[in-house]
């Protein structure tokens, strides 16, 4: 009797609640490192979920057919065909599409002067300007089918209007990822949207392998004391111990000065404090300038810092466009740069991809 009642209850419950197809389960999620991107792929259906890091209840859900197989006509898809015309608002997006050789699909960017990719520079694209001041008309005139944006503020302007017209607006939170590989994993988003999922998967696996190989080689020996950041106004801003940059330093086997500080954002410290603890620093990374004169002009007292006196300062500022475009999707290249920098006197500067000595 109890069994029948229990069985009845069970039936009732399973009938009463629809099968929850609105969340990709962990077991289905093929993203290994990303915190905000989830993708599931079956023979017929690809589901993509992008979670808002500031409000986890806000999830953008996309349903696409699996472009490799024939479409199942009974489903309603958010994206019906592989995307041919994309508007991208961040350099990292350009970098990822570049790695997939899909530059010709880009029809609009934020600002052409920040583009590094030569193919795109030659091809040209419509300029849309700052995300917050963006004009819906310009987007429409570019012929874009989707707009990939960074989501600095909560809502993308004109989102509803564009959706009505059939232009999908998709946030890309790669910049919020703390794990370097999690950041690169967003290349899969571009792969799936454009019908190049396999290439994207292969490319990403390659990046992961490179990354892990370098990491295995160098992670152990933590001898180089590293400082990061620069003075802005009255304070020195440096990445905290749990941040993206700190993770890279750690994986590269650099002994980062603030690796024990909690937080994933920036620390703000007085210059006095920095001066007091940097006497033994071997390496200063990411000051944000590409020459000493600039550093000293902005903050003359920086001349007291030992790494500056010894010229062991390195940054990517001589080509910021390249860095911003490719650093997100190629963390393996950043790691290889760090591994090279670790060699000290024996480093070969022509092997550095992003970084250059600040003279």
């Amino acid at each position, binding site marked *: 009797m109890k069994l029948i009642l229990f069985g009845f209850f069970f039936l009732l419950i399973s009938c009463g609640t629809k099968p929850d197809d609105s969340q990709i389960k962990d077991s289905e999620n093929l993203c290994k490192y990303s915190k905000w991107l989830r993708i599931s792929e079956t023979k017929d259906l690809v589901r993509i979920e992008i979670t808002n890091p500031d409000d986890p209840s806000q999830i953008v859900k996309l349903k696409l057919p699996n472009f490799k197989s024939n479409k199942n006509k009974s489903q309603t898809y958010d994206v019906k065909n592989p995307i041919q015309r994309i508007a991208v608002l961040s350099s990292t997006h350009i970098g990822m599409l570049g790695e997939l050789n899909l530059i010709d699909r880009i029809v609009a960017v934020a600002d052409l002067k920040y583009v590094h990719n030569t193919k795109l520079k030659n091809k040209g694209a419509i300029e849309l300007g700052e995300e917050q001041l963006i004009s819906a008309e310009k987007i429409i005139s570019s012929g874009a089918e989707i707009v990939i944006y960074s989501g600095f503020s909560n809502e993308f302007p004109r989102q509803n209007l564009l959706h009505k017209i059939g232009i999908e607006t998709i946030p890309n939170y790669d910049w919020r990822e703390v794990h370097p590989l999690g950041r690169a994993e967003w290349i899969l988003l571009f792969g799936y949207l454009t019908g190049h999922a396999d290439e994207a998967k292969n490319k990403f696996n390659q990046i992961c392998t490179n990354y892990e190989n370098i990491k295995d080689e160098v992670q152990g020996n933590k001898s180089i004391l590293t400082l990061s950041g620069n003075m802005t106004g009255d304070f020195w801003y440096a990445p905290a111990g749990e941040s993206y940059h700190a993770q890279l330093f750690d994986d590269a086997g650099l002994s980062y000065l603030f690796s024990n500080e909690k937080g994933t954002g920036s620390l703000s410290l007085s210059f006095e404090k920095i001066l007091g603890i940097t006497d033994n620093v071997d390496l200063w990374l990411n000051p944000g300038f590409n020459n000493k004169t600039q550093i000293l*002009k902005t903050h003359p007292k920086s001349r007291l810092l030992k790494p500056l006196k010894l010229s062991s300062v390195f940054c990517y500022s001589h080509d910021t466009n390249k860095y911003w475009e490719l650093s997100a999707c190629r963390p393996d290249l950043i790691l290889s740069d760090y591994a090279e920098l670790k060699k000290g006197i024996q480093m070969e500067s022509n092997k550095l991809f992003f970084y250059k000595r600040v003279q």
Partner: protein
Amino acid sequence: MIGVKSHTVLLFVVFVGILGLSFFGLMLGDIPTEFSDLYPALLDYSSQDINQVIIREIRLPRIMMAIVSGAALSVAGMLMQTLFQNPLAGPYVLGINSGSSLMVALGVLSGVGFFNSELGLIGSALLGAFVFGLFILFTASFLRNQIGLLLFGVMLGSFVSAIITILEAGSQAEALKSFALWSMGSLNNATVEQIPMIFSVFIITCFLTFFIIKPLNILVLGEEECRLMGYDIKKIRILIVFITALFTGLITAFCGPIAFVGLAVPNLTRMLFKTQNHMLLLIANLLFGAFFLLTCDITIQLFSDILLIPINALTSLIGAPFVIYILIRKLR
């Protein structure tokens, strides 16, 4: 009525206070330093000892800037309040610091290489103050009365604000932050090598001010009274504008705009000493101004672990209620 004797005593007390706070400020900071570091840092310097470096290169210039800025801005405020016969005038009413703001904005926000790479922040601000100062002086020389000058300063300020807003709209986040931080003011920008130069300009300008004490005394009764006592009011006006421009331009160049000091302190000294004698007021403003800003600076240092307070915020926090108090008194 405070007698002359108590005036002197009070001024002396404030002077001693400045010395005391300076000493305290040199010892206070993130890195613990000893009293025994102080003497070598100042007089027998060795750049190897990190404690000495910190005292001499970081704290000393900051303390000196607090003293000079507080003093200079307070005197500039006094001059403006007497010239315009208005206790709500401050050192920025003429629009000198608009010049600095504009040049710094062009350098930081517009991305026009020349401003940023060639001149640096301080150079830009100095140049801006100088150019605008000349412009304002020129205007002052042919205006009939001081209302025109006041209006001109206000319009200049608005115009420059508009241009800066346009620059801001087209800027990247980092540039915006940079500019916003400059606008918050900072006593940390001057280096120890620049201090002698800054101090010299400050002293010379103070010296110049001594020469117009007598006409300033008469000026409280109005420009007409000044003329009736035989003064060339145009010359006096130009001299006042020139001195104010020197003080304000110097400080804004090295520190960015610092609010309220120039507005609150001259009112405070007038109320405290109950006088319009500009000799007494000049000295009082120099001392009280320096003391005030030093106090603000030390407060910021004491709180730096808990809360980051830009200097402008603190001077406004203390200054604004005080100005409201003046307004209420005036309206009664």
